[in-house]
């Protein structure tokens, strides 16, 4: 690995310092329990992921990349308790809006309705950047998880584990896919 890699590493989660105390005191605290990643919740996360990175004519989407299963491992092991709280509060909010506003569970909603919900969370976060932002966190997680998955790296992008050689100058034609690594 080249040392420069540390310069370009992607910020996948919000730094813990961005989490304000006020936020925790004021809002309904989500309890992070073992087994929180139930089968039902993983299906929901798959649907959230698929809304952000959908399958298209050229490549599969986040659901095919088992994004919910990835989140289970990543959020459980790599997120701080504070970050896990933000994560679950956001997910619970998605559940609530789905029921309250659209009268159904998120996975059963139409694509436009799903997008509306996520968009509302996204724009909500833009109002005050001091508070933790659920949508950028979720979005970064989905994007990272998708493009490092086998379908994401090999179908949406180009991936070769062993290129064999390096060539510093090859023509790029508009539309050519980017390298995954």
């Amino acid at each position, binding site marked *: *690995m*080249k*040392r*420069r890699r*540390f*310069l*370009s590493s992607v910020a*996948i989660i919000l730094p813990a310092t961005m989490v304000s105390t006020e936020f925790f005191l004021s809002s309904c605290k989500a309890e992070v329990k073992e087994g929180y990643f139930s089968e039902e919740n993983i299906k929901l996360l798959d649907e959230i992921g698929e*809304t*952000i*990175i*959908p399958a*298209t004519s*050229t490549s599969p*989407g986040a659901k095919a990349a088992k994004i919910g299963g*990835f989140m289970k*491992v*990543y959020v459980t*092991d*790599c*997120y*701080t308790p504070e970050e896990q709280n933000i994560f679950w509060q956001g997910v619970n909010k998605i559940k609530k809006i789905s029921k309250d506003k659209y009268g159904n569970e998120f996975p059963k909603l139409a694509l436009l309705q799903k*997008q509306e919900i*996520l*968009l509302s969370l*996204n724009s909500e976060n833009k109002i005050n950047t001091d508070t933790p932002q659920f*949508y*950028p966190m979720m*979005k970064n997680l989905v*994007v990272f*998880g998708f*493009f*490092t*998955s*086998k379908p994401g*790296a090999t179908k*949406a*992008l180009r*991936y*070769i*584990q*062993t*290129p*064999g*050689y*390096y*060539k*510093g*100058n*090859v*023509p*790029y*034609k508009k*539309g*050519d*896919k*980017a*390298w*995954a*690594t």
Partner: protein
Amino acid sequence: MGNINSKGIKENTYDAIVIGSGISGGWAAKELCEHGVKTLVLERGRDVKHLIDYPTMAKDPWDFPHRNELTLKEKEDNPVVSKCYAFREDAMHFFVKDKEHPYIQEKPFDWIRGYQVGGKSLTWGRCTQRWSNFEFTGPQRFEFGWDWPIRYEDVAPWYSHVEKFIGICGSKDGLEAMPDGEFLPPFELNQVEQHLKDSLLKNYGDRYLVHARWAHLTQPNQIHLDQGRGKCNARNLCQRGCPFGGYFSSNSSTLPWAAKTGNLTIRPFSVVHSIIYDEQQQKATGVRVIDTNTKEATEFFARVIFVNGSTLNSNLILLNSISNRFPNGLGNDSGVLGKYICHHNYRGSLGGEIDGFDDTYYYGRNPTDAIIANYRNLHKKDADFIGGYTTYAGAHRDRDDGQTFPQQMGAEYKQSMTKPGPWKVYSYVQGETIPKEKNHVRLSKDKKDEWGIPQLITSVEYDSNDDKLLNDYFVQTEEMFSKAGVKNIHHSDSKQAPGLDIHEMGGCRMGTDPKTSMLDKMNALHHCKNVFVTDGACMASTGNQSPSILYMTLTARACNYVVEEMKKGNFK
């Protein structure tokens, strides 16, 4: 020490003992064994066999549960080593975890270690420029230290000797500040890097961006094939161990080469407690070793001893080698042992974006960075600081981040991220630091490690010279990049503690005067001539070039000196 369980002196006697199997210890083993010297290599960690013990080398990104990121627990358990750029899911098994070997940070020092056969040669950065006489004469010319007892001419043939064997790619650029070596073909510059190179020449005339000089087999020669190594396949996954032996490590090259001679014994799990000094014979006769698993103590004996335990551990061993003759550490009449610890200033990085070049891309993953050779304080002092710096630089074109796309979700957002984004230009600095007496390591008087060896106290810090050098790097690189059309330039001072550079040096420095130095011009202790220190501990100043190949070069040179002396009947 507990009971000495010597199985009889004869059985535990070799011609030479090498302490450490990393990048310099491996070279000592190769050179000595090739010349018929029966050699014992002591390694405190486990064995790592080339290919067999590279569990992650064939893994894809999705094979890692956390996609090569660290878990919260790994970070919490390892506040020091988790700062290291290569301590990730794919290579963390080649690093010492914080709890495995505690040390005392009197001032913050990130001590990054690799306790296994091969040491840090498995995970090293692989950058291998030669020192020039500007570096060797720097301390004397600018009066910031004691003169080196050697010059470029003394080491040049040994650089060649090492380069031919390990394989260095690069191009002969004819630069006085960075002498040419024995090079295999270089990794090509991409179009943006070529543009940067041209822009530097046009705008400055005397600033050179050149191809990487890196320990990769771009086109193996017979000597490399004979080692069982092959061409670099441009994977840029080197830190996992290479299935092709495409980059140099002790494990892929020097150690198996030494083993083939039949003269090598490697003993893993053997931490060296101290070197045994015989007052009557006035020389070192062997080493005390503790088995890291059983804690059993054993003594091994030899005619010469090479200390290659990595900079700080070599200092620790010498400091802990106490006798009536040397109450302050082996060979330490001068009192300088453990002092003048220095390192490289790796705090600065700077980058930006460049428009255009949309119709060009690259194939494969370049495992190297281009180099802007040092242009400071060469013939004369031309900056408000002492020393010089190397600037690494390059350009890449990653997957677009989709940030400009208004709706951060959906098919078009996804599609935008499957295409390459704009070209990005990056750089980082490797700056010389000045050896100072107060920057030192010493042994704890009361705290010991689990093998009964005193813990090391680190007391090393930056000074204002480092800040000035860093500032100059920012100002100059921003100017150079701006002139080349790089925009949105941002720079960062990581303010990282010394040590995280993993270029710690000194403490047992070479010098002409035994009153102010530990080692003579052949790397032997002035006051104990059959002990040689040829790892980073021997450095009298840091220069601005990457140090590992100089350690290898000095090791090969010292070993051949030993062999010649043995032929004359010396080192009995």
